[in-house]
């Protein structure tokens, strides 16, 4: 079961700070689950920044963009090699 961070409506750096905090709290290396975190964001900059931050920290990242008219997109963060 993945943890979820709702950073919709927030502008950078807050989504990144929340992601950082959540990654530190979930300790993926101990729990052994493949999907570590889901981050909900609603602007492009936040999506890029959260993805870049997670890759930078050695996670795999997959982005699911919302349908037309829906601003929300989900950044899924996976522990490397476990997906």
């Amino acid at each position, binding site marked *: 079961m993945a*943890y979820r*961070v709702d950073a919709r*409506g927030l502008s950078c*750096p807050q989504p990144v*700070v929340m992601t950082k905090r*959540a990654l530190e*709290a979930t300790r993926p290396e101990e729990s052994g689950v493949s999907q570590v975190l889901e981050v909900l964001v609603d602007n492009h900059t936040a999506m890029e920044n959260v993805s870049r931050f997670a890759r*930078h920290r050695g996670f795999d990242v997959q982005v699911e963009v919302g349908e037309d008219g829906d*601003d929300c997109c989900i950044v899924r963060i996976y522990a490397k090699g476990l997906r």
Partner: protein
Amino acid sequence: MNQRRVVLISGAVVGALSVALTVAGNPANMGICVACFIRDIAGGLGLHRAEVVQYLRPEIPGFILGSMLAAVATGEFRARGGSSPVLRFVLGFFVIIGALVFLGCPLRMILRLAGGDLNAVFGIVGFAAGIWVGAILLRRGFTLGRSSRVSIGNALVLPILSAFLLILVIAMPAFIFASSKGPGSAHAPVLWALVAGLVVGALAQRSRLCLAGGIRDLILIRDPHLFSGFAAIFVVSLALNLISGRFKLGFEGQPVAHTDWMWNFLSMATVGLGAALLGGCPLRQCILAGEGDTDGVMAFLGMLVGSAFAHNWGIASSAAGPTANGKTATIVALVVMAVIGYMGVDASRRPNQKQTAKEA
């Protein structure tokens, strides 16, 4: 193209255009200065009557419209707002007061250093110190609250106003002011300034270039991405200044600058803290405003009004140094920002703003 290359190219182009604009007529080490240009616009509109700094700088409407065009072209234009608009106005107001005590926004701070003005070093140290304090508040959960979608009309106000400013600077009706001496009288031809502004606006939108963000991300998440844009601006403008003989190393006699190191430090600390709380430097606020972010518009309007007060109340510095009122205003600005910072950390503890991760 990857993000890294975009931010480097944007920084390089901003650095090059800044020097090009001084060649074309803008004041020395002031090819682009968001704070100075907003102040000149306030003067051009007659909101303050400091005769040497009045001119409707086309660069600023250029940033806003360039960002809007880039955002529309890439489908990123979104009318949104509602994240503490009034506090953002107040922060914008005090950020520009700090910038006008220093004599430059963060971008001009870099350009001053690239021109050999060593007074900017104290500004940079202060700016970084202010951002460091802001980063501590952000790490503790500082937030101005969430924004949401608003109707499109809200997002169109500032771009329309920008277009109107461009009409005014070309038509020059009698009620618009334009300096005949001083920095306000030194300007590149309107078309050049506008084109440069549009290019910078579009590139800054694509790259998210932000001077405050560069240092903030280094401190907060050790990510040099945005800082590399910052560095590119410096390297390119330094190289062009050296080649064109514009580089003059020293503290004394630098163009539109003063040598009071303590107030150079404190005033830029104010700008750094305010920019960290706002989520971006003055340039970034113009870019956000162009993308449809009405919270950025509020910060912009705060800067416009703040710059008028800075000159009406004798707060802005001159080459002679900071004024007593300017020192007082800088302290007031730091206190106001500290209160907003404290309230923003406190707000994040309330349940509707809860930021902790929970099971999905």
